[in-house]
């Protein structure tokens, strides 16, 4: 299956981006990410005195010959970070209803992150929370994984009110989890689960999607309806507009504090930003938290 032009353009744009881990990962298959353990690779890092129990074969015999002291030659070990992308496909992502701009941006972000992770040699998996149940692609590092993810996301129609939290417990092995959501669903439970993952040593990324119309709603009197709860209707008028903007801003700030406080890498993404730039912000530690 061929990719859509927008997907291809995105993959071209994120080609130079590699999604490197921010923490030292536990030992595993050889990869591009620094491991917590120091191994025996040719890349020298430091010496350490021999302790009882060390493998004698790792003693640097030249140093022993010169100084008559037994040292071990240590080097950085590099491993892989199995990455799972958890994508929210609830009704609130199907906005605006005519263009589905929010969902398209979420999809492109997921593809871009998958490409960045795959380029670092990591196996990538996908979990999509849809109204008809979760869609799942297992962790794979082979070629074509990003295409599989793009095609899987192309079939998804956002709608309903699916929960994200149960999806975080589907994969046991991933060392990195990226959640793409607008946080308008099971937010509290998701925060708790994300905090647990972060506390267990995993890298957890939260990509908070916001549409410009949510930040700055139209300046006309509107009877607004929640796409996930049709019974929730509020009137947006001049008298209530500013209070909405203030409340929403305060809520987003509170969410950012809460997620970051839980050890999660939180990034707010507005959908009018280029997807490739959003991907670069998310994966680059120095740019994370900076909107543009």
């Amino acid at each position, binding site marked *: 299956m061929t990719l859509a032009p927008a997907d291809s353009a995105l993959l071209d744009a994120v080609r130079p981006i590699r999604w490197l881990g921010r923490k030292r990962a536990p030992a595993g298959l050889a990869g591009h990410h620094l491991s917590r353990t120091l191994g025996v690779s040719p890349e020298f890092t430091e010496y350490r005195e021999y302790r009882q129990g060390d493998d004698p074969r790792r003693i640097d015999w030249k140093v022993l010959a010169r100084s008559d002291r037994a040292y071990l030659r240590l080097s950085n070990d590099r491993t892989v970070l199995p990455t799972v992308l958890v994508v929210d496909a609830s*009704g*609130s*992502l199907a*906005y*605006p*209803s*005519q263009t589905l701009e*929010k969902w398209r941006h979420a999809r492109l972000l997921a593809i871009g992150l998958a490409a960045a992770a795959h380029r670092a040699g990591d196996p990538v998996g996908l979990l999509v929370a849809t109204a008809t149940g979760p869609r799942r692609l297992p962790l794979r590092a082979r070629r074509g994984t990003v295409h599989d993810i793009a095609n899987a996301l192309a079939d998804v129609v956002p709608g309903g009110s699916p929960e994200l939290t149960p999806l975080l417990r589907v994969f046991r092995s991933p060392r990195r989890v990226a959640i793409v959501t*607008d946080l*308008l669903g099971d937010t509290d439970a998701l925060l708790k689960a994300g905090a647990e993952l972060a506390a267990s040593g995993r890298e957890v990324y939260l990509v908070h999607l916001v*549409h410009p*119309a*949510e930040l700055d*709603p*139209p300046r*006309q*009197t*509107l*009877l*607004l*309806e*929640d*796409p*996930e709860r049709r019974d*929730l*209707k*509020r*009137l*947006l*008028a001049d*008298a*209530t507009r500013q*209070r*909405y903007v203030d*409340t*929403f801003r305060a*809520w987003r700030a509170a969410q950012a504090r809460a997620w970051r406080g839980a050890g999660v890498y939180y990034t707010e993404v507005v959908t009018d930003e280029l997807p490739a730039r959003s991907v670069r912000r998310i994966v680059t530690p120095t740019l994370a938290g900076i909107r543009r």
Partner: protein
Amino acid sequence: MIFLAPAFLAVAGLAALVVIGLHFVSTRDPESDVLPTVRFVPDHPVRATRAAARFQDGWLMLLRVLLVLLVGVALARPQFRPPHRTIARVLAVDLSRAVGNPTELADSAGKYFSDATAVILFDAAGREVTRRPGDSIAAFATARRSFAAPRGSLSAALITARRAAARLRDGADSLELVIVSPFAEEERDAATIPIRALWPGRITTVRVSSAAVPSSAGPVKVEWADSSGSVLWARRPRPDTVTAVRAGDAVMVHPFVRRWQAAVEADSATRVYARWVDGEPAAFERMSPTQCIRTIAIPLPTSGDALLRPGFQRFLSSLVAPCGHPMALAPLPSSFMEIIRGIGPLVATGSVERQDARATPVAPWLLGVAALLALVEITVRRRHATRRRFADERSRRSSEAA
């Protein structure tokens, strides 16, 4: 057509204008849209309907205006103006027992029938007849053979004539009242002269011969139900106690033990002479060719204080009073007749008050049509609302599909 309360027409006109104005002022609900973050919009009531000068729902407006105008016209009490006459004649014909010769009465009244605008037949009470008053007089001639005809009352005739005049005032310049009656002594009472004074003009009187005092009037033969074995009474299965009985004008209050009940009903030859307090007959009076027999089913007390009461004596006297009502059929004196006739011109209609309290015959029909329109309005309004709701739903679906 004239309106007795034209102010309601003005009110209805104003209300119709308001209805039309309201149809030009339409309220519009705000447009609806979807926003995922709607939960952050403060939830407090905000007035969002907007008024717009746009005409809408023409048929509904027409129905409502028609409804308001119909109610207004009905409340304004419309009356069709009768054909205008110079003189409207009110003919009052006496059908009481004082009339001696019904044929003569019919002949005398017939002279005025053709020109009469309203015909009143009266005895103890007056009633205006609208269809074939001659039939009533013929029926009177038949009924007159019995002694069941009531006593006449000139006062009743004058009051009924005054009511008719109030109705006829808008269709004539003057009103003439013609009374055909024997003008017997018993037909006047204390109110006759004051009531006559309320008729502000002269009255034409046509005197017919009065009846002779019936030969049956005289001593009565009294029979007691206990001893006579009369066919008029049947023994009561279970005697009861009644506290009072009335015979003529006399009333006796006493715990009577009632043992008899009426076995027949009163007819032209038999009339109830006394009644118990609960309305059941207590005495009958029958006219035979030779005499008047009064059959009494009242167990009169034979001892006790009741016998000493003056009321008992009066009651006893009434039980043995002569048959038939006391009749005073002597002609009224000429001085009284002059008062009845009066002097001066006919009654000018302007001096007669309009009868405001009378319901106009058109009003109920108008109100009925208005009620029908109200039902139609409800149906049309619901249909409009349903159509509008479907249109909104369709537009919402089409926008969602797009």
